[in-house]
């Protein structure tokens, strides 16, 4: 499998703080790689660094072999990277339709993807005229993922999609993200190990700002000692 994203030894500062001290990760085309780690390990900062929102000061990031480090967020997005941030970042005063239309990179993007999006998230169809701020947490999460699917993205960066959601909504999201597998590559940050292990084919563990371990998710699931050591779950 060819890598769509290669993150090589990136270092990122937020103000004075050295948050990422050498993170490397690879996402294969059509696959789902999960970033794992304890709270504050640097998972969200890794996604933000890839997206150009908190640019790295050292290291390189390649998208399909093209360097994207140093580029601005809007350029990286235009190159085919979709971002679903932690806490969803839904525009509360905009309707569901406006939230989706905003993500169009060329006219007709939404019309082209509408059937697929509503098949994945049927609830959004009946909520289309409601302001984003009126949706429940689960509905907002679905909208956030749907928004990233409007343009033809090659890679999705999804941050903590299951956070704060009811189990039944989490199952719907898992099913939706699993359906994306093969069509679009995904780098997923997920604190919930059960969700992560269901979705990911590969994993990277980030520990105190650097990538400590990576490999196949199937192998990690069998290694309880490793899970306990790095993630604190058994």
């Amino acid at each position, binding site marked *: 499998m060819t890598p769509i994203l290669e993150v090589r030894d990136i270092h990122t500062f937020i103000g004075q703080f050295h948050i990422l001290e050498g993170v490397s990760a690879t996402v294969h085309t059509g696959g789902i790689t999960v970033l794992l780690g304890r709270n504050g390990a640097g998972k969200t900062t890794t996604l933000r660094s890839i997206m150009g929102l908190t640019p790295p000061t050292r290291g390189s990031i390649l998208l399909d072999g093209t360097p994207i480090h140093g580029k601005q967020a*809007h350029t990286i*997005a235009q190159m085919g990277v979709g971002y679903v*941030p932690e806490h969803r*970042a839904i525009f509360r005063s905009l309707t569901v339709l406006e939230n989706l*239309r905003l*993500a169009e990179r060329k006219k007709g993007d939404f019309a082209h993807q509408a059937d697929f999006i509503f098949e994945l998230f049927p609830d959004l169809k009946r909520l289309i005229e409601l302001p984003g701020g009126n949706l429940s947490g689960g509905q907002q999460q679905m909208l956030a993922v749907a928004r990233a699917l409007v*343009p033809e993205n090659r890679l999705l960066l999804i941050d903590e999609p299951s956070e704060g959601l009811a189990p039944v909504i989490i199952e719907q999201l898992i099913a939706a993200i699993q359906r994306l597998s093969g069509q679009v590559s995904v780098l997923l940050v997920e604190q919930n190990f059960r969700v992560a292990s269901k979705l990911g084919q590969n994993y990277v563990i980030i520990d105190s700002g650097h990538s400590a371990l990576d490999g196949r998710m199937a192998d990690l699931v069998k290694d309880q000692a490793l899970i306990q050591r790095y993630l604190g779950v058994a």
Partner: protein
Amino acid sequence: MRSQRTSLIAIFVILIFLLGVALINSNSLGDFGITLLSGLFQGMLLFLVAAGMSIVFGLMDVLNMAQGSYFMVGAYVAFDVQHTGGLIDLTNIIPDPNFRFVVAVLAAVLVGAAFGYVLERFLLRSLYSRPIFQLVLTFGVSLVALELVKFIWTTTPYSWTELFGVRESFFELFGQRFSTYRLFVVGMGIALIVAIGLLLQRSRIGIIIRAGVEDREMVQALGIHVRSVFTLVFTLGCAIAAFGGAVAAPFLGASTTLGSGFLLQAIAVVVLGGMGSYAGTAVGSVLVGLAIAVAQDTAIGTSFAALPSITPMLLLVLVLLVRPSGLFGNSR
């Protein structure tokens, strides 16, 4: 929901109070009509300064202290184009004063837009993460603009002498003569309120602006070049202020005090309406305009000559006591 109700009640109470005082001050329905029209006229002029300020603040977190200067420059450019002997003398090329006024307004809008573009693109852009520096810069720009205006047009205030269609006509209502031009400005203001409202609600750029007011970073992460939108919005805001100055000039003339006077009132409008809220700015402009007109009537024959100039701030304090984030503002 509850805060919305509080805002609506506050607007209703202020309106009833202002209309009540206006009615008490008036000797006839004609007087009452004049106060009302004068209030709407001043409100619309305030809106033209405050609209750009409010949208720019909402999207970019920049409080443009030079906004009043664009209003002043707009007035001077329009005056210059309309009259003989100015920098640009079009009286021979365009002898029809009506058509020349249209050109004068367009020239003012273009100059305002050009200066707005230069300020955002070359001065302000590097200071987005430094709010205090932005304030100092835009205040400095307003001083430079003032000196430039004095240098070009001197400090002598100009009264508009070149009359044209709507500026020289009057209409009668309840036995009183009303200037058609005031009505024209009110109409232009209302048209602009609707036009900007439609732009914000219906167009893609409007959706981007509304989204940017909430979360600029996410807009950028969706592939939209927010900096270009900043430039466009800032330029538009300055052009609207210059337009305001141009349409105000036939009534108020052109003077170096125009900018500072309107700036303070516009700040009161923007804060009173709720920082960054377009609807708040529109409603706030009407309320402050009416309040100033009522205060002007009340002050006649009394020793409270300063009442009209302090009224916007008094109203602001009252509103903030009830709604600390302004009538339509959020609590950020």
